[in-house]
C-alpha cells in the first residue's frame, strides 16, 4: 500500500529538512543491494528502509541459525532453518510499506558465476562480511558497471567500512561555512546600476537606516577605491580604516550623537567577508582540469557536461568568474529594498545559468546529441548555484589496494609511526581475511582453538607484512593486541549502521562521502579514515 505524496511529505518531514525534496526523490528511485543479512547487514538496511529507498534486494545463501536469531533484531525464532535473505526481507519490509523488498536465496559467488550482470542494476551494493576473494571479484564487476560498492565488516570490537567507487560526483556538498558570493570586488553592470540608484546622503532617515548593508559596503568601497588608486583595503589596518569610514556615515542626531543604525553596524561587522576576493576555489579548478571535463563525449554523464559548460562560461561571459550564486544573506532592510537587491542577484544568476545552458546545448550538439536529449533547466540552475562547492571523489579499487605493486605503502608506514594508529587494526583484519582463506573459518571462534590459532594467524600477519613493510615491533605489537581482541565480545554493528549514512550520501549525490576506508575501534572509541 503506497503512500500519497502528501502523506509521504508528513512521514519524511524531519529528513526533508536535511536533503530536500530532490534528495528524497533520488532516494525513492534507488535500488539497494545488501549481500548477507547479518546483524550488521540488517542494521544498515533498516536505516535505509526507514527513510524510504525505492527498493532493496537481499542476496544471501545462508540458512538462519539460532545464533543469528540471538543477535539479529530482524530475524525471529520461527525463521530458523529458512533462508536468511527471505526471513530478513519479511521483517525489514514491515518497517516501511513504501519500500519494495526482494531477496535472492543464493550467495554472491554463485550469482557472479551465473550472471555477472545481475549486480549492474543496483544504485549501490553493500557487502557485509565478505571474504577477500569475493570482494575482489565483485569489486571489479561493479567497477566496470560504475556501481558504487560499500564493503562492511565487524570483528570483535573493530568496525571497518571501505567505499569503492571509481568516480563519485557531488553537486550539493553542503559545506559548513561557505562564503557568500556577493561580487563586491567586481560588481557586474546590473549591480553597479542598482548601487547607483541609491543616494545615501539625500535619503530620509528611515530609508537610510533600512538600506541593506551590501549597498552600504558597496557605496563606501567605491569611495575608498577612488581615494586609494583603485586598491581595496587589504590588510588589517586598511580594513580598520575602511570600517571607520563606514562608521562615519552613520547619521547623527541634532546633538551630534550617532543614531542607532543597525544596518551600518551590520555593514561594519561584515567588512571582512564582504571584501573577500571573488575567485574559483582550487578544488573546482582541479576538476576543471580533469580528463573527463576536457573530453566530452556522447557518453559523458551530465555532471561533466555541465562542468565543461561552466568552464566555457568562465572563459567567456564570466570573465574568469563562476556563475553568480544568486542568493544573499538575511539582513536588516525593509522588504522592498531587500527584495530589489535580491532580484538583482537572482536575475544575474538566471542570466548566467541561461548562458551556461547555451554552452550545454552546443556541447551536446557537438557530440551528436540533439533535442530532445538535453539536461533539464532546473538541474543546470542547481549546478550553477553550487558551482563553488562541486566535488569529485575518486576511490582506489580493491585490486589496487591489495596488490603488492600498488599498495599504498606511504599511508601504511606513515600511520605506523604512531603505535596507537588504527592502521594496526586494518592490517589485522587483512590478516584475518587471509586466515579465512587458508582455513575456511575465522580464528579463535572457540576457546580451545585460541592457542593454536594465534600461531596460525601469526603466519598470516607475517606474510602480509613481508609483502608491505617489514617492521619487527609492529608484528609483536599486533600479536599482543590480537590475543586480546580476538576473543573480545560485543559487536559494534550498531555503530556500523552509519554505513547507511554513507550509502545515502552516495545515492543522493549530496554531502561528501569518506575516501576510502573507515575504521572504528570500540575499545578506545576512536575512529580514523585512511586512504588505501
Amino acid at each position, binding site marked *: 500500500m503506497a503512500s500519497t505524496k502528501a502523506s509521504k511529505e508528513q512521514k519524511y518531514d524531519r529528513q526533508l529538512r536535511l536533503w530536500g525534496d530532490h534528495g528524497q526523490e533520488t532516494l525513492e528511485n534507488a535500488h539497494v543491494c545488501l549481500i548477507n543479512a547479518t546483524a550488521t547487514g540488517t542494521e544498515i538496511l533498516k536505516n535505509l528502509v*526507514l527513510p524510504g529507498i525505492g527498493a532493496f534486494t537481499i542476496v544471501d545463501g545462508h540458512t538462519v541459525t539460532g545464533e543469528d536469531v540471538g543477535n539479529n533484531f530482524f530475524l525471529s525464532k520461527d525463521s530458523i532453518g529458512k533462508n536468511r535473505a527471505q526471513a530478513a526481507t519479511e521483517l525489514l519490509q514491515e518497517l516501511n510499506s513504501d519500500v519494495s523488498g526482494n531477496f535472492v536465496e543464493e550467495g554472491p559467488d554463485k550469482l557472479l558465476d551465473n550472471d555477472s550482470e545481475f549486480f549492474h542494476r543496483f544504485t549501490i551494493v553493500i557487502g557485509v562480511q565478505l571474504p577477500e576473494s569475493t570482494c575482489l571479484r565483485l569489486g571489479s564487476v561493479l567497477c566496470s558497471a560504475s556501481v558504487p560498492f560499500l564493503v562492511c565488516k565487524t570483528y570483535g570490537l573493530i568496525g571497518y567500512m571501505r567505499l569503492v567507487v571509481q568516480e563519485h560526483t557531488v553537486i550539493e556538498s553542503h559545506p559548513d561555512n561557505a562564503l557568500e558570493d556577493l561580487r563586491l570586488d567586481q560588481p557586474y553592470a546590473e549591480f553597479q546600476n542598482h548601487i547607483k540608484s541609491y543616494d545615501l546622503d539625500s535619503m530620509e532617515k528611515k530609508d537610510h537606516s533600512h538600506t541593506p548593508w551590501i549597498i552600504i559596503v558597496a557605496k563606501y568601497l567605491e569611495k575608498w577605491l577612488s581615494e586609494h588608486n583603485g586598491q581595496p583595503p587589504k590588510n588589517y589596518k586598511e580594513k580598520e580604516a575602511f570600517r571607520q569610514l563606514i562608521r562615519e556615515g552613520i547619521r547623527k542626531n541634532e546633538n551630534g550623537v550617532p543614531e542607532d543604525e543597525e544596518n551600518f553596524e551590520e555593514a561594519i561587522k561584515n567588512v571582512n567577508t564582504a571584501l573577500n576576493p571573488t575567485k574559483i576555489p582550487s578544488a573546482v579548478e582541479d576538476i576543471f582540469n580533469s580528463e573527463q571535463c576536457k573530453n566530452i563525449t556522447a557518453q559523458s554523464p551530465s555532471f561533466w557536461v555541465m562542468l565543461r559548460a561552466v568552464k566555457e562560461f568562465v572563459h567567456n561571459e564570466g570573465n574568469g568568474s563562476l556563475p553568480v550564486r544568486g542568493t544573499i544573506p538575511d539582513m536588516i532592510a*525593509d522588504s522592498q529594498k531587500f527584495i530589489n537587491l535580491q532580484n538583482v542577484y537572482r536575475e544575474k544568476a538566471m542570466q548566467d545559468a541561461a548562458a551556461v545552458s547555451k554552452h550545454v546545448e552546443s556541447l551536446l550538439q557537438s557530440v551528436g546529441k540533439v533535442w530532445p536529449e538535453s539536461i533539464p533547466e532546473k538541474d543546470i540552475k542547481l549546478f550553477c548555484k553550487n558551482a563553488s562547492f562541486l566535488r569529485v571523489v575518486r576511490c582506489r579499487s580493491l585490486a589496487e589496494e591489495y596488490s603488492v605493486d600498488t599498495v599504498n605503502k606511504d599511508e601504511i608506514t606513515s600511520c605506523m609511526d604512531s603505535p*596507537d594508529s588504527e592502521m594496526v587494526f586494518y592490517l589485522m583484519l587483512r590478516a584475518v581475511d587471509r586466515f579465512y582463506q587458508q582455513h575456511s573459518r575465522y580464528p579463535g*571462534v572457540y576457546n580451545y582453538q585460541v592457542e593454536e590459532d594465534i600461531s596460525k594467524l601469526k603466519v598470516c600477519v607475517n606474510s602480509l607484512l613481508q609483502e608491505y613493510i617489514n617492521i619487527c615491533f609492529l608484528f609483536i605489537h599486533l600479536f599482543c593486541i590480537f590475543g586480546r581482541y580476538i576473543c573480545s565480545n560485543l559487536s559494534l*554493528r*550498531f555503530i556500523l549502521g552509519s554505513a*547507511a549514512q554513507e550509502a545515502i550520501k552516495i545515492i543522493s549525490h549530496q554531502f561528501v562521502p569518506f575516501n576510502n576506508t573507515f575504521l572504528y575501534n570500540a*575499545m578506545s572509541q*576512536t*575512529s580514523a579514515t585512511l586512504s588505501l
Partner: protein
Amino acid sequence: GWATPRPQGPLADSISTCKVLVVGAGGIGCELLKNLVLTGFKNIEVIDLDTIDVSNLNRQFLFQKKHVGKSKAQVAKESALQFCPSANITAYHDSIMNPEYNVEFFRKFMLVMNALDNRAARNHVNRMCLAADIPLIESGTAGYLGQVTVIKKGMTECYECQPKPAQKTFPGCTIRNTPSEPIHCIVWAKYLFNQLFGEEDADQEVSPDTADPEAAWNPEETAARATASDKDGDIKRVSTKEWARSTGYDSVKLFNKLFKDDIMYLLTMDKLWKKRKAPTPLDWHQLENSGMLSASPGLKDQQVLDVWGYCQLFQHSVETLRSQLQEKGEGAELVWDKDDPPAMDFVTAAANLRMHIFSMNMKSRFDVKSMAGNIIPAIATTNAVIAGLIVLEGLKILSGELESCRTIFLNKCPNLRKKLLVPCVLDPPSANCYVCASKPEVTVKLNVHKTMVLTLQDKIVKERFGMVAPDVQIEDGKGTILISSEEGETEGNNNKFLSDFGIRNGSRLQADDFLQDYTLLINVLHVEDLERDVEFEVVGEAPDKAPPPQTNQEEVNSITNGNKDSAQPSTSSKAVRRDLVLCQKLSSQADRCAQQISPE
C-alpha cells in the same frame, strides 16, 4: 557464520541481572531499546509521555502506521518483546517529572539512560540521578550531529554545570506591538490560534498592548485613538474567542480585525514608529478587488505565496478549524500541533500576513513549520550510532570502569584530523554549579518592587532553575514561607511584590524541591533599571545572546534532540533550537580534548 558473542563473565552476569531505566522512547529510545535487548539486558523500564505521530516513522522503527496515536512507551515495549520475548520490559506512559518517580524509584536502577528531547526533563532527570547517586548517560542528536556523555555525582560535570544560553522568550510588547523578525510573527500566530480555537492564556495576548512602556502615550489622546478603531473598543470587553464566536468565525471579519483594525490602532501609538518602519494595514476587500493573482492552487510546502494567496489560505484554514471545533461540540478546544495540516496552514497564513504588514520577507510553509514547531531534523542513522555509543558507555559503567567513560561527539563528516567520532575526557564537577555543588547558591538581579511572587515562582524558580514543586522561604530569621508546594497555602501571595515581604537588596531566599531533593540559596540583588521587558537576570550569566561564532564548524558545539524544548514551546526561536544536551563544549574545547586523548 560469523560469531558475535555477547559479553561473558562477570560483565555478562551484571548485564542480565541489572535493572536499567530508559527515559524517552523516541528516536534514540527505540534504537536504544533494541541495542539493550540484543546486548542481553533483561530488566528494562522505559518511560515516555508522548504518543506516536506519522513524522516519527522515518526513524522510530519500533512503530508502524497502525500505531499512530498510541503510547510510545507501550508500543516500543510490545515491538521489542516481539523480537526478544525473554526480556522483562516495563513501560510507563507518563512524564518522568511526575512525583511518583521519586528518588526511591531512581534508586532501583543501576543505570539511567536519557533519550530525551527537552531541557526541562533533562534538568529534572539530572537532579534525580544526583539525588539518588545513580550514573546517568545523557545523549542527543540534531541532523547528522550527535553527542553522548556520562554524568556521575562527584566525579563528572552534571548536566547543569555549564551555563547554557537562556531559552529565548519574547517580550509581550514585541509580539503584540513591534515584531521585527519573522519568529515574532510566528509566535504571534500561534498565540492567535490558541486565542481563537484553543485554550486561552492571559500570557498569550495578541491584540495591541496599550501598556507598552515605549509607547508611553498621553491619556488625553485615548479618545482620539479609540475612534481610530471603533470596533476595537468592543473587543476589549470580550475575549478574542468570544468575539470570534459571535461572528460565527467569519473569516473576513476576523481578517479585517487582525490585519486592518488592530494595525491601524497600532499606528496611532505613533511613538513606536519614530524609529521603526510603521506597519501597513491590509484590507480584505481591497485585496480581493486588486486583481492580484493567487499562486498556483494546491499548497506546495516550499514555495512562498503572494499576499492574496495567504489571505485565501487564512480563509480556508479558519473555515476548516471552525468546523473541526463545531464537530467537537460545545466548549471544545483545539490543540495546536505542527503536524496537523489545518493548524499549520492557519499559522503559516497568519504569520505571513503579519510579516508582510511589518515589512518582512514572507516565508514558505516549510520554513514556518521549522520555526513554529521548533523542528530539528532527525534521521535514523545518527540515532542508531548514538544509541550504540550509549550502550558502550553503559558497559564501561557496569564493568566499574567509570574513569574510562568519555563524552563523544559525532561529526557530519570526518574532521580535519579525519575523525568522525571525537572522544573527550569527562570534566570534573564545577565548583560553583548551582545544582551539584555541595551548597548550591546563586545571585539574581531583579527589582523587588516590581517582581511579583508568582513571577519568582514561575519564571525564576520553576522555569529558570528547573524546580518542579518548589517551597521558598525567606531567610529573615523567622523563616517566612513565601511559596508553598502544597496547594492553597500561599496562593494569596501570588500577586504581591517581593518588597511586600520585606525582601530587599541582599535578602536571601531558600528554595527547596522535595522531589528533586534539591535546595538552592537565592541571593537577591535589587536593581532599579533592568532593560525593557527583562524581568530578572542571573548574575554571572550573560543575558540572551547569540551563541558564540564557531571557529571550526566541523566540531559539534551544541546538540539537541527534539522539538518541544521549552516550558513554553510557543516562544521558541533559533536560540532555543540550539539547546545543548550537556555543558556547552565549544568547538575549540572539543578539538583540544581530541588531541589529548590517545587510545588506551
